């Protein structure tokens, strides 16, 4: 295959001095559970808490820190090192601790990806979103994110591993968990902006968990201008290639469509070599959109250069879809096509996706405990490896340089 979905379009970490092509660490395991992070005891007598040199904030931090014990190192990236960890009181309860590296954060302080990840995960608690259990600093002022331990690797490993057999019921169960997780984000006015099968991790009970919130942002303010240079290429919707800078949950829903299609075909669904070529790949399947099926499209920033002179093309017929995705049946195909609707206004929202007849059509979604998965040891290794993944192609290097130079890029 030899093709990679390209790195997320995010700039290099500010002040990163590491090897140029070292991969960004991946959030692994992740609810800022207020029960585990008690306020400094209001009830205790107001004497000096902590040591004589500690303030209340430090005291609070120490309470959190002392709940966890660091274990083996699982992986290391440009931004962070990830360790296995466990609760001090309950050693069998595992966590993953993501220790943010400080040197990469020097120029502009704590990097944006970490801030965003902490900001959004602290607000979002859902069975299908990675759980941020706590955050603390260690004395050298490294920030540590305590995340839930997700030992079964990534969703991508499942479809890539030809030794794992799965069927329509399994795809349905996975797809539904993804849609529920994304629905929750959107109800909370948060866009993920980097949904892809290797940002979806698998818990011990086979639940899927949306992870990596480094590109997430709020979309509560409809006037705010947002970047179109976001979402990993294979999963990026057409409106972003056309330069749309006002959008909502629809961008994530396109990515969800790509992930479900990927599970159905056990391969990349819309692979391409470059950003410029990708819109061509999309129109190959979905036809060339016109003002009549997408009113307003010709007003988008890059429409002239990207589409104006493209010869008309019809979308692939239903028979093409039936040929490619027998695994999910007509109902599944209808859902995927609803999610992969070119016009973002007509695309299914997360709520509409959850109301789709696919979920109630036969077969029933697989029970969680019966979902196929990688073996225990192998999968834990995969968790470590996913962190170390390095974008080493020349193409990636060039992209990174381009990003470094793209001062105006917004997110």
């Amino acid at each position, binding site marked *: 295959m030899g093709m990679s979905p390209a790195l997320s379009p995010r*700039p290099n970490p*500010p*002040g*990163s*001095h590491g090897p*140029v092509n070292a991969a960004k660490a991946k959030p692994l395991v992740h609810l*800022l559970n*207020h029960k585990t*992070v008690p*306020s*400094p005891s*209001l009830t205790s007598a*107001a*004497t*000096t*808490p902590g040591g*004589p*040199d500690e*303030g*209340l*904030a*430090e005291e*609070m*931090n120490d309470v959190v820190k002392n709940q966890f014990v660091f274990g083996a190192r699982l992986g290391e990236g440009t931004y962070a090192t990830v360790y296995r960890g466990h609760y001090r009181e309950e050693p069998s309860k595992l966590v993953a601790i993501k220790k943010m590296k400080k*040197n990469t954060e*020097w*120029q*502009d*302080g*704590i990097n*944006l990806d970490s*801030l*965003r990840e*902490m*900001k*959004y995960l*602290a*607000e*979002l*608690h859902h069975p299908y979103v990675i759980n941020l259990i706590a*955050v603390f*600093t260690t*004395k*050298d*002022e490294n*920030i540590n994110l305590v995340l839930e331990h997700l030992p079964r690797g990534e969703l991508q490993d499942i479809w890539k591993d030809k030794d794992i057999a799965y069927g329509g019921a399994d795809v349905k169960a996975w797809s539904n968990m993804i849609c529920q997780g994304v629905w929750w984000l959107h*109800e*909370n006015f948060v866009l993920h902006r980097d949904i892809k099968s290797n940002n979806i991790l698998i818990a011990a009970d086979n639940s899927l968990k949306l992870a990596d919130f480094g590109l997430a*942002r709020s979309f*509560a*303010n409809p006037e705010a201008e947002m*970047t179109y240079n976001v979402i990993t290429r294979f999963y990026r919707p057409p409106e972003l290639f056309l330069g749309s800078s006002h959008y909502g949950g629809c961008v994530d829903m396109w990515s969800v469509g790509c992930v479900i299609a990927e599970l159905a075909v056990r391969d990349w669904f819309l692979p391409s070599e470059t950003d410029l070529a990708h819109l061509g790949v999309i129109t190959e399947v979905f036809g060339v959109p016109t003002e009549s099926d997408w009113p307003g499209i010709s007003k988008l920033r890059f429409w002239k250069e990207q589409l104006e002179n493209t010869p008309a093309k019809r979308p692939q017929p239903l028979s093409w879809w039936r040929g490619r995705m027998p695994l999910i049946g007509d109902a599944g195909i209808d859902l995927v096509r609803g999610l992969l609707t070119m016009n973002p206004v007509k695309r299914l929202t997360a709520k509409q996706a959850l109301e789709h007849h696919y979920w109630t059509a036969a077969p029933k979604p697989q029970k969680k405990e019966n979902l196929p998965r990688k073996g225990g040891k192998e999968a834990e290794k995969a968790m470590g490896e996913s962190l170390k993944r390095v974008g080493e192609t020349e193409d990636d290097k060039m992209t990174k340089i381009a990003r*470094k130079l793209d001062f105006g*890029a*917004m*997110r």
Partner: protein
Amino acid sequence: MRLNEDDLYRQSTQYKHWSFTPSDLTRLRQKTNAHAATQVKLHIAQDRVERAKLATLDVASAPESGADTPNGNGAGTGANTPVPGGAGDKGGEVDCLTTEEENMVVDKFCETAMKLGDFLKLQPDVTATAIQFMRRFYLYNSPMTYDGTKISKTAFFLALKLELGTRAGSASDFASRLPKTSRDDIVAPEYTIVQALRFNFEVRHPFRGLKGVHLELEDMIRGNYAVAHDGRTPAELRGEALQALEVAEEEEAATKLGNIYAHTKDILTMAAQLTDAYFLYTPSQILLAAHLLASPALTTFYLATKIPSSSPASTKILSTLQSCADLLSSHRSYSKNPAQHKLAWADGDPPATKKAMKKLRGCKDPTTQDLVALNAGKKRDVVRDGTLEEGKAKRRKLNRETAEKENDAFWGPELKKEG
């Protein structure tokens, strides 16, 4: 699954970690104050001992004539360490701020921050987030420990990053827009701040809902609103809305509505930021309370389109809104007729605030004034010994510079800034 806004709000860190009853809020502040006062007294005493030692050393090693040099209070030595009360430190009992005085000082810091945001022409969201970060920070830290000017610069940069993402610009860009500020000044206190913020960065601002309320009101005035719970027709709602605004025509209504919008927004971006409103009330309560101040009749009408005025909940809600409105209108920025220059009220300080600010000068913790040095990895050393370990600092600086050079070797040096 049915979700309402209350359920969503109860998931937020603002609700879980930053909402208090008035008595909890007072107790937390008393605890912070008591703790800081102990530290301040301890550190000033240590500082005096240190100074006395240095003074003796100076005397001992000075040339013969030096023996006559008056060096009573040691103000001439160790000039790097801020001295409580400066040369005027008589070495007597340190008079620490009370909780009330701390509140006044923090309010003053926040007012200054608001002026800074105005001066830098930052979006209201950024300024409001920065101010709320400061208010949250000073629940767990005393202004005697951390200087408001320094904390505000970093709070602003943090708010910029969180609200604007990569458009926030770099720390050095931001520093260059501020007087006598380096990138280190911006970045150094960040860890101290994020720790006190408990790594919670989402602030739910009441003004974010204002536009929505007004879109609904506009619809009602045009007779296009049809979802009243009590079966009132759009035409009836239109009539009542016009009556609440005391106008007969839609055009007049639109002008009046515009004024109410602007007034509410002023209250939300000033008084709501500079009081404990965010700690004591929910965003929607603050929004409606501000609206109540701007137009009682219209707000009562609007509420009744959501909850029947006969419902017991309605009475309860109105009394909560009224108490929140009282808090907002108690702030000196509140005016019934918004002035042209919105921050004019902040030009002078009340006498009590002036007095507290003056008192603060005599009770600052000497170990936490140089935040850049504290951050340079010497935190504990500084705190414990009251002195800097220069060797360590130099080594770190060297490592940093080497790393930067290596980076530059690949990327080319950083672009020189113009001007």
